[in-house]
């Protein structure tokens, strides 16, 4: 891992590097706040799933740096495209966390989705790798319009196997779009280790096929993720084309709440990586810098927790969408006659279906979400 860009040391044998230019103390604290907010969301969501208050959930415990670090490097006008793994990234752009929780609770319509253009944040993308071309499209459009706007797509190392990744990388490199391909190499795609996903040792090497610059960073280090993204975005907006960032880390948690990693890996390995998780090291780093002390950090954690608790309340007081929601927004403007009969049919059967789904609880625990 010697080739990984890393800023934060471990307070022992691995030294700290200077804080990158462009990040003041306030930024560092704000970035820490972002990390904590993501963590709070994630931990609460896992708990909610265990309690049956939301459905299958794809946790990202340990991958907060890849999300907050890179997002903090972008301008508000830049676009971002998450996969299911970065499901709550929108909350750092103003999407109410209750909306994301509602999504996982199975709500649609206006309660479970958000306005992508307003937040410049793509919808949570479930099918692997297929959102990557959209990031190329937005940045390409910006370029054609003469606007200095970058786009970033997050995806896993497993996603690099899909054709859409390749086509997107090629388009971006040919048209020199300001696209940042942010690959979180957490070494696992459900049960498939990266060594069976690809023959290369790194994801970064794949950029060579597109004459695209690539950089490998420590995916647990928010400042390294920030720095790589900042450089890529600045260069991209200036016309320098796309960048592939490989954030090397480890999927510390299960693939999702329905997954049992003991079937395919030695969980003591995951245990070892736990100490790398970004929140602890960022807090210590800020303490070493004298930017944030323990009580300051505690306050941030407390506030974040409260934000998420409030979001849970909001989610749970949001009424389950009525049956009409299934017809909502199929088109920008639904042809008025199109769903009238269906609505009539549903309404005339009156009460909601009383027959219990045949095997919901059973299947629920067996299948992988997202």
């Amino acid at each position, binding site marked *: 891992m010697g080739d990984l860009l890393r800023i934060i040391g471990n307070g022992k044998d691995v030294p700290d590097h200077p804080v990158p230019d462009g990040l003041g103390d306030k930024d560092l604290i704000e970035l820490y706040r972002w990390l904590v907010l993501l963590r709070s969301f994630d931990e609460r969501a896992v708990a909610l799933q265990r309690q049956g208050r939301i459905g299958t959930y794809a946790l990202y415990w340990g991958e907060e740096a890849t999300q907050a670090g890179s997002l903090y490097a972008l301008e508000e006008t830049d676009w971002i495209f998450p996969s299911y793994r970065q499901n709550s990234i929108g909350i750092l752009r103003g999407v109410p966390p209750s909306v994301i929780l509602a999504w996982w609770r199975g709500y649609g319509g206006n309660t479970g989705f958000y306005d992508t253009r307003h937040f410049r944040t793509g919808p949570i993308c479930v099918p692997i790798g297929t959102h990557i071309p959209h990031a190329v499209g*937005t940045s390409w459009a910006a370029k054609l319009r003469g606007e200095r706007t970058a786009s970033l797509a997050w995806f896993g190392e497993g996603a690099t196997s899909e054709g859409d990744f390749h086509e997107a990388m090629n388009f971006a490199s040919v048209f020199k779009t300001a696209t940042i391909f942010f690959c979180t190499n957490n070494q696992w795609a459900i049960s498939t280790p990266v060594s069976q996903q690809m023959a290369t040792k790194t994801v970064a090497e794949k950029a060579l096929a597109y004459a695209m610059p690539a950089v490998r960073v420590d995916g647990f280090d928010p400042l390294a993720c920030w720095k790589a993204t900042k450089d890529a975005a600045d260069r991209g907006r200036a016309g320098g084309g796309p960048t592939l960032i490989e954030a090397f880390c480890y999927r510390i948690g299960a693939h999702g709440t329905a997954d049992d990693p003991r079937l395919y890996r030695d969980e003591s390995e995951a245990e070892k990586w736990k100490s790398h998780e970004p929140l602890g090291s960022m807090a210590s780093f800020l303490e070493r810098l004298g930017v944030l002390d323990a009580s300051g950090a505690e306050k941030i954690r407390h506030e974040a927790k409260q934000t998420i608790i409030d979001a849970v309340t909001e989610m749970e007081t949001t009424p389950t969408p009525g049956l009409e929601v299934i017809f909502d927004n199929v*088109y920008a403007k639904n042809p008025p*006659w199109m769903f009238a009969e269906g609505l009539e049919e549903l309404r005339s059967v009156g009460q909601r279906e009383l027959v219990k789904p045949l095997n919901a609880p059973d299947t629920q625990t067996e299948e992988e979400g997202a």
Partner: protein
Amino acid sequence: MTGSTMVEALNLALHQAMDADDRVIVLGEDVAKTGGVFRVTQGLLDRFGKDRIIDTPLAEAGIVGSAIGMAIYGLLPVVEIQFDAFVYPGFEQIVVHAARYAWRTQGQVPASIVIRIPFGGGVRAPELHSDSPEALFCHVPGLKVVCPTTPRDARDMLLAAIEDPDPVVFMEPKRIYRAGRQEVPEELPFEFGNSNGEASALLSTARTAREGSDLAILTYGSTVPLSVEAADHLAADRGIETKVVDLRSLFPLDVDAIVSAAQECGRVLVVHEAPRSGGLGAEVSSLVHERAMLDLEAPVLRVTGFDVPFPQFANEDDYIPSVDRILQGAYRVLDF
């Protein structure tokens, strides 16, 4: 020769849309420098430059996927798929993303793209240049699927598709591309960008291609002119007046027009070139029976392509519904 071919009419529509709104851009394989293999995009490069009409690398998912991104950003991309069967590598982007973007974004960010697909046989082309994949898109809620069969409709409907906020799969029957000419007025059919519903009406209504009340032929695409021809034979030979409905809007269908034609005529034949099983004809036939069975004097029959891969071209005329097969189908409905 006066008037325009369908190719020329489509070309005019692109010129007019790009003129009217600089967010309209065109992308695809070989569309810019050559003007497309069918020359539908000819002249656009000279007129609008290489930032408005773009030759892409050879990758349909990449093309459709980036067009979706462009639409999200605020552009109005028009994508050309070179031939029918080459849309399949981009299928996922169309059905999973384009079709669901409005749905996933509170209705605020539909994927406003037009996907132009020259389709169908009859032009003596090699394998996979003659498919009719439209029914696959007509089972995907969130898409609109349309198909003009006259130069005038081609121009007007393409303008409407570009203006429409939803993703439109725009099927172009290549057999009609240069088959005939029609006067296409220069003036726009509606105020572009401000159409008060005229545009969306163009995308959701059928057209009566021929009047009649003894038999209704419901059809679309390349079999519209063949059906009109068959109707003329029926009139000459048997004094039977056939209404030919050009469906135009394949999904959602113009249910009213379909049902009222059936009610008026009492006898219905459905005609299309795609394979029968699971084809659009099944949906049309079901609708008619569901809603107008008591008005029917015979079951709705279908004259369609067969349930086989589109044949090698020496035998394509055995596959494509011919005027004779349409006539035979009509007689079966009439003589029931």
